């Protein structure tokens, strides 16, 4: 057997089977290093016991407190005989009551799909219609406002155009009058000179 520090520690703590313990002891008889290691470990273990246990500075005790006491059902749950008796009594009572009171088998109500649909539709109408009405009114108002704005802009543009046309006509009329006057003057001048004769 070769040197094994863990086997020496196992021996120290009595964690080896008898046969294995014998083998380790035989090895130690022939190996001074392992013997010394075992001796040092034994000393360490003994030295550790130089640290004595201390008494707690105060004793710990609990007083009866309803908050921490188990409930009646917890006590019952943790007591075998009482729990068994209670279970048997409960079962007997259930059988007796069942024997006297037999409730008529209830026929499970089959839901009417049409009624369910009608209810759903009514509920949908109740919740959706006001919302739709409000949304439509809001959209209409927005449309009207937008149309009014467009109409007003068109009117403003039409007025401006009309004013511009009026000004242009007025200018043309003035120019025509001026040309007419010049033509008249030319007529008179040529008559005086006898050109047109």
């Amino acid at each position: 057997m070769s040197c094994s520090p863990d086997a020496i520690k196992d021996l120290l703590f009595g964690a080896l089977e008898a046969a294995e313990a014998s083998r380790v002891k035989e090895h130690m008889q022939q190996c001074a290093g392992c013997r010394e290691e075992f001796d040092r470990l034994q000393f360490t273990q003994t030295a550790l016991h130089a640290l004595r246990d201390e008494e707690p500075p105060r004793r710990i005790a609990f007083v009866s407190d309803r908050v921490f006491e188990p409930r009646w059902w917890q006590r019952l749950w943790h007591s075998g005989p009482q729990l068994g008796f209670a279970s048997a009594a409960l079962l007997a009572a259930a059988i007796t009551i069942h024997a006297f009171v037999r409730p008529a088998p209830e026929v499970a109500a089959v839901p009417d799909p049409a009624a369910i649909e009608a209810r759903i539709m009514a509920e949908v109408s109740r919740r959706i219609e006001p919302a739709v009405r409000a949304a439509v009114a809001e959209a209409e108002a927005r449309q009207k406002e937008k149309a009014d704005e467009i109409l007003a802009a068109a009117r403003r543009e039409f007025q401006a155009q009309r004013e511009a046309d009026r000004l242009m006509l007025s200018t043309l009329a003035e120019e025509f009058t001026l040309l007419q006057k010049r033509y008249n003057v030319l007529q008179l001048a040529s008559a005086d000179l006898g050109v047109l004769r």
Partner: protein
Amino acid sequence: MIFREAEDRDLIAKARRGGVEAYNLLVSRWEKRIFNYLLRLVGDREDALDLTQEVFLKAYQNLGKLDDAGRFAPWLFRIAHNEAFSLLRKRRPETDVLPDENHAQRAFPIELSLAVESALARLSEEQREAVILKIYQGFKFEEIAEVLSCPVSTVKSRLYTALDLLKDALAPIHSRGVQ
């Protein structure tokens, strides 16, 4: 030990039915062990006492969940383990105050306990807990695995590494011999 277990079973059954006095008796049988386990793990008496109180309160409230009254000790230590590590996790950002490391150089018996305390404080929390449960509380490896909720191989690994560290820490005392 068998008698102790039998008495514990009886007290647990009475406590489950609401017997506060029975529970107080059960507490008196275990409070010293739980207190010392917590004291060595958290290293502060007031904290250890508060945690002990909390452990027994939680144990009382959850006594109904204990499936096998014969497994009361690992179950109780499991609650203590959870409480202790909950506190240690909260403390973790702070630096633990370690005892004077020169204690190991002194070979006077009166100070051996201080040297041991110092050496224990240098272990990781998991290693220290494995030492406490095995050497001070005398649990079997399987029971420790149940308390810590980990495989036996993990328990052994933590304990044996811890033992090597303790052995080295206490070597000066060993070489001089305790007076």
